């Protein structure tokens, strides 16, 4: 094998040893346009209205669950230049709002990028005959999490992104969390190993400083269940234009064996896991490929220059690409 081939093989071997280095994937519109914010300073507002729920998310202040709000703020900061020096993206906390309307008004001078704790299921506050069901407006009307049908309650969080259908430019992004109102019907339990996806009026978010034993009951203290900061960090990755590095059900995306498991953007969350509060090198690579410090935002389907690979950012095919290239080099070496 020639020295050149040895060097190339070593480089590829290094890539294989760090398979997540280029796994990030851009979110795209149905026309294939990658999502991006045109502005480097993007504001967000939090609707802080939230009843008392997890002891770890509560403190004695004006708002019952300031720890929950701080968890969301920390999640936003994680994706900014304040924490990641390869980007100058700023996600600006523009304070609280009492707006509870998710979506976009093209006639408005300003739309809020909203984070809202939807408290309770809409099926418990809107009558079956309520016109909001036919118009899809129950969540915005009653500030609840819209569960038109029972299996909708398996949803923990939703991000709605309004964008230009052709260019992928993001105009507005809102995050709804299916939050627990703090009321617990008699006999309810979390049954972590059980089969119910019908939690009492929302999901039990916790805000523990570090991982704790898994909760076994709603309202239980000293335990972790659906870690708010981890889940918010993941949703904000979508907020800025990142997708998942692989698709569940595919061979490279097994939640137990996939090399992409550590990534914040991996499409599986573990109850009680707090590790996804921190970006991995690959999550950071995706952020900084789109919004590089001092550089132009990556808006086209193909990156014109510099690192970051092709439009997919390497994607889940990054590892496959490395393997195929290594095989090709080995064959070329044998011919000589």
């Amino acid at each position, binding site marked *: 094998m020639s020295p050149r081939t040895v060097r190339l093989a070593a480089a590829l071997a290094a890539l294989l040893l760090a398979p997540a280095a280029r796994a990030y*994937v851009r*979110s*795209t519109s*149905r026309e*294939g346009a990658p*999502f991006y914010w045109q502005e480097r300073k993007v504001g967000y507002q939090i609707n802080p209205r939230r009843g008392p729920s997890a002891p770890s998310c509560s403190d004695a202040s004006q708002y019952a669950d300031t720890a929950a709000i701080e968890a969301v703020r920390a999640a936003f900061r994680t994706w900014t230049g304040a924490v990641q020096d390869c980007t100058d993206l700023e996600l600006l906390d523009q304070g609280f709002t009492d707006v509870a309307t*998710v*979506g*976009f008004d093209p006639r408005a001078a300003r739309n809020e990028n909203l984070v809202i704790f939807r408290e309770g299921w809409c099926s418990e506050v809107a009558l*079956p005959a309520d016109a909001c*069901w036919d*118009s899809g*407006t129950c969540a*915005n009307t009653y500030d609840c999490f819209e569960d*038109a*049908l*029972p*299996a*909708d309650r*398996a*949803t*923990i*969080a*939703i*991000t*709605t*992104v*309004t*964008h*230009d*259908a052709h260019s992928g430019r993001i*105009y507005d992004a809102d995050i709804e969390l299916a939050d627990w109102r703090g009321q617990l019907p008699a006999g309810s339990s979390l049954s972590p*190993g*059980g*089969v119910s*996806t019908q939690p009492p009026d929302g*999901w039990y978010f916790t805000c523990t400083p570090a991982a704790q034993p898994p909760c076994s009951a709603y309202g239980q203290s000293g335990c972790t269940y*659906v870690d708010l900061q981890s*889940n918010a960090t*993941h949703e904000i990755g*979508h907020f800025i234009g990142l*997708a*998942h590095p692989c*698709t569940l*059900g595919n061979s490279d995306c097994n939640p137990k064996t996939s090399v992409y498991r550590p990534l914040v953007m*991996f*499409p599986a*969350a573990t109850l009680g896991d707090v590790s996804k509060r921190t970006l991995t090198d690959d999550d950071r690579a995706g952020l900084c490929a789109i919004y590089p410090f001092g550089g132009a935002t990556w808006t086209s389907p193909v990156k014109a220059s510099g690192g970051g*690979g*092709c*439009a*997919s950012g390497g994607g889940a*095919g*990054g590892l*496959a690409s490395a*393997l*195929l*290239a290594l095989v*090709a080099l080995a*064959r070329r070496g044998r011919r000589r």
Partner: protein
Amino acid sequence: MKPTAALLLASLLAGAPSAARAATFLETSVEETARTSETVVRGVVERVGSRWAGSRILTEVVVRVTSAWKGRPGERLTLLVPGGTVGDLAQEVDAAPTFEEGEEVVVFAGRRGHTYRVNGLALGKYRIEDGMATPGTAGARFAPRGLAAGERAVGRMSVVELEQRVRSAR
């Protein structure tokens, strides 16, 4: 094309952009989705049309039913789905399934109000292609949990298996 060049070309094509989906779901079984659905149908998407509803975009989907696996939905099923495109603006609701005209699908549905909705949003719609059923959860994120013995999590499977599980769900 020389084999080595073909391999290198294939390596460049190995990565491909994917559409954006971002919701987080708790892992759910096919059987549970079937049990909580009023109707489960196999059919073909006939028409898709979006409109504004306040600050949201909604899409009306008409499915021509070719086989009813549960319930009595009639010849056509009209569904209301969050998200869609109106003019130059698109709204992507990451939990919601998407439909294309001409697409063959299996849909788990129920009525709320006067309209049918997809049960479990992206969990309740499968695309059928080459005998396989793929749920619309390609970009969804799951929190694993224990399922009932013998039940299978929402995921890609053969249409035959999907139908068996739906029909046998109690």
